[in-house]
């Protein structure tokens, strides 16, 4: 498609207020729990007090008699299993016969208000038979029986993976020095300030609508269709803006499915908002010649994203430094704890931490400056790693140089006296996983544009605003191409009935994928408008500039049309105006089993120097100052980019 006249960017890279900023500071952003509708009922879940137990009996009678209680659901009401990965459909909306962690839900009570629902939950009588509890991955390996699940690779091992690229073991044997270390990374939780909340209702047409604080409305949509046994096109999922996600809202959840089921059974809207205590229950985490890495993951009680998490602990270790030979063995064990899924860099920060600490130990042992040790063996730009990941641009060198300079590293390192020092570490992450969670050949994201004679442009995309600024990115990309301002573009996002599919706000994928789809859709719209405008103005399309809400001649800016006039011409010539764009990441060069985890269209890089002081009397440490440099490519809006880096 012949584009119009090239010009500098007007929107991209300029600091500005985000398009949804005004609503947020006025308290007018509607989060899921802010939705109140007439005749709305409330749901509460009964959660297991045991880490591992058989459910011998649940008596619903007492609960059903509580004043205000309308419905009690148990596992048998929703017996079809679900899970985020196609290979791991091992969760039930409510447990069927066994609970596997403290907090595993086994019944739901719906009532006219929250207190009656709570009272109903308290009235449920359950007889449990406690089973052996497994509390750590080491214990899981040593305790093959009883099995937490009747499947998995063996005993209480969920998944074992192993790769060797080149002769990694051999390279260790022939290296002058071999360094071996053991690292432990404590579990932690995402802790978004907004607790998970869901409102489900049957719309006037008899179709199910579910509003939820989810990062992945598309995957929730699929899970609802499966468990409820309803065709997906009769279900609408609306992802409300998330009050923080960080990976903790990226699975389809028990409460979402149970809430939808209750709305269908009762024909009334049903809402559930988890308490802070429940949110804690829901999810938590887990010159080089060659390198081998072994990871042991505390998987918790269900598969969740576990297979992918296990691969991810090994996949991205090769994109920062040149590692010619690489071996990896990963193992995820089942334990009686909340299932572990992705959090802020899915399975990557933990092994990265180990690699970076080990590099420091090597530097110390060999008396080399840790910054120099890293700089001399960076993975090159435009290269393919030992495990077949294609690296495009790679500017970790500039990142390291920046933080080394900013912190006066060379003058101050190891010279700050006892109890005070500087440390350096580097990292990298995906710009979206190369493959979708369920394998298919369709785009990972789509954008539709609607334009009309009023001058209005509406951009539709299934992406979910979780605070990161995706609504703004969508508006900014469209505005840039069409010569508008972001506030001139209305965005409609995260709605499975109104917007094209986007796989969700996870794996740092939205800006790259949705952004490219938005650009494509906007370029197609620009073509239609330029076509009509060039005819009117009697000039070739490639002489036209779209800027400042006008379409004009590059060499004679006076000659042109205002935006509305241009749209009127375009609508007259082409009929109702609408365009689409979509994006699918390039294919990966890797073709081994497991090669699907790790490829990405681009990798971002970062380096940080931290100044830390330690009180020798009690070991308390204090982070005095941090210098960080990121290679993020082009920043769409520096205000938002800074927020992402600092946050």
């Amino acid at each position, binding site marked *: 498609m012949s584009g119009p006249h090239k010009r500098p960017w007007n929107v991209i890279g300029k600091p500005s*207020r*985000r398009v*949804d*900023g*005004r*609503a*947020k*500071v*006025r*308290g*007018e*952003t*509607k*989060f899921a*729990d*802010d939705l*109140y509708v007439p005749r709305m009922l409330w749901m509460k879940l009964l959660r297991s007090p045991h880490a591992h137990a058989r459910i011998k009996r649940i008596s619903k009678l007492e609960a059903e008699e509580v004043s205000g209680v309308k419905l009690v659901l148990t596992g048998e009401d929703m017996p079809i299993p679900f899970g985020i990965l196609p290979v791991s459909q091992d969760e039930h909306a409510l447990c069927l016969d066994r609970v596997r962690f403290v907090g595993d839900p086994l019944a739901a009570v719906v009532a006219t208000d929250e*207190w009656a629902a709570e009272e109903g939950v308290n009235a449920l009588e359950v007889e449990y038979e406690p089973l052996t509890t497994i509390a750590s991955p080491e214990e899981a390996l040593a305790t093959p029986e009883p099995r937490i699940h009747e499947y998995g690779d063996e005993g209480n091992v969920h998944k074992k993976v192993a790769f060797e690229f080149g002769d990694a073991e051999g390279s260790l044997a022939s290296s002058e020095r071999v360094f071996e270390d053991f690292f432990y990374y404590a579990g932690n939780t995402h*802790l*978004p*300030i*907004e*607790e998970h909340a869901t409102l489900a209702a049957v719309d006037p047409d008899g179709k199910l609508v579910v509003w939820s604080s989810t990062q992945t409305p598309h995957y929730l949509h699929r899970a609802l269709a499966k468990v409820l046994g309803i065709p997906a096109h009769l279900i609408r999922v609306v992802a409300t*803006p*998330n*009050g*923080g*996600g*960080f990976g903790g809202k990226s699975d389809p959840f028990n409460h979402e499915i149970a809430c939808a089921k209750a709305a269908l059974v009762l024909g009334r809207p049903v809402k559930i908002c988890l*308490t*802070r205590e429940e949110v804690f229950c829901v999810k938590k985490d887990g010159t080089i010649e060659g390198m081998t890495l072994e990871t042991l993951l505390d998987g918790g009680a269900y598969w969740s994203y576990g297979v992918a998490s296990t691969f991810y602990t090994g996949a991205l270790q090769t994109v920062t430094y040149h590692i010619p030979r690489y071996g990896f063995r990963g193992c995820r064990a089942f334990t009686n704890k909340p299932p572990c899924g992705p959090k802020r860099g899915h399975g990557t920060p933990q092994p990265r931490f180990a690699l970076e600490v080990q590099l420091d130990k090597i530097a110390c042992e060999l008396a080399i400056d840790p910054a120099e040790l890293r700089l001399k063996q960076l993975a090159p730009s435009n290269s393919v790693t030992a495990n077949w990941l294609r690296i495009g641009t790679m500017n970790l060198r500039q990142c390291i140089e920046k933080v080394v300079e900013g912190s006066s590293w060379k003058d101050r390192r190891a010279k700050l006296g006892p109890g005070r020092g500087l440390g350096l570490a580097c990292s990298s992450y995906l710009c979206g996983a190369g493959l979708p969670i369920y394998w298919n050949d369709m785009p990972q994201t789509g954008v539709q544009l609607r334009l009309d004679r009023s001058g209005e442009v509406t951009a539709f995309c299934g992406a979910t605003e*979780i*605070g*990161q*600024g995706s609504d703004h990115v969508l508006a900014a990309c469209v505005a840039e191409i069409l010569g508008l301002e972001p506030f001139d573009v209305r965005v409609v996002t995260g709605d499975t009935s109104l917007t094209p599919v986007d796989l969700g706000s996870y794996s740092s994928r939205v800006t790259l994928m949705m952004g490219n789809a938005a650009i494509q859709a906007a370029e197609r719209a620009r073509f239609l408008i330029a076509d009509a405008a060039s005819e009117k103005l009697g000039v070739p399309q490639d002489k036209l500039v779209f800027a400042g809400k006008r379409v004009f001649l590059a060499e004679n800016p006076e000659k042109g049309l205002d935006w509305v006039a241009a749209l009127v011409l375009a609508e007259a010539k082409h009929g109702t105006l609408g365009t689409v764009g979509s994006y699918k990441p390039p294919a990966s060069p890797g073709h081994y089993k497991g090669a699907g985890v790790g490829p990405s269209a681009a990798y971002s890089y970062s380096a940080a120097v931290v100044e830390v002081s330690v009180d020798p009397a009690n070991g308390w440490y204090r982070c005095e100052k941090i210098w960080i440099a990121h290679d993020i490519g082009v920043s769409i809006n520096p*205000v*938002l980019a*800074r*927020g992402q880096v*600092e*946050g």
Partner: protein
Amino acid sequence: MKNVHVALTLNGERVEVAFDPAKTLLEVLREDLGLTGTKHGCELGECGACAVLVDGVPVLSCLVLGVECEDREITSVEGLARGPELHPLQTAFADLGAAQCGYCTPGILCTAKALLDEKPQASRGEIAEALAGNICRCTGYLQIFEAVEEAAKRLREGSVRS
């Protein structure tokens, strides 16, 4: 339990509301008065998301009973703007990236307003101390502190804009 009937001043307007006496101010605001700008993050008094001003003083509305608010003056985030015109704190928060997901924002705005009402020249240390009870998981706080400083400056200069 039988409802109680309470009259109070909410964002400058006299309102009367009937509610279950066990309800917190947070619940009364959100459920009975329809103002959902005030958020609940923990309902344990830990996170600050539910902060509102009672007679100009920041309180955690999840720890105050509605019945305690008879004849008190309540300011929630909805009371900061003057019609379409944003309060300088709101303008600065929107412009400087101090609101990311926006869930902690209403509580922080109310708390910051009380601080600036009392100390128009608040230092970075005083701002950090005043907001120490408000947890934000997105920003890392720096843009929040800078926005409060910017708002303080604009307030001292007497400028407002939307």
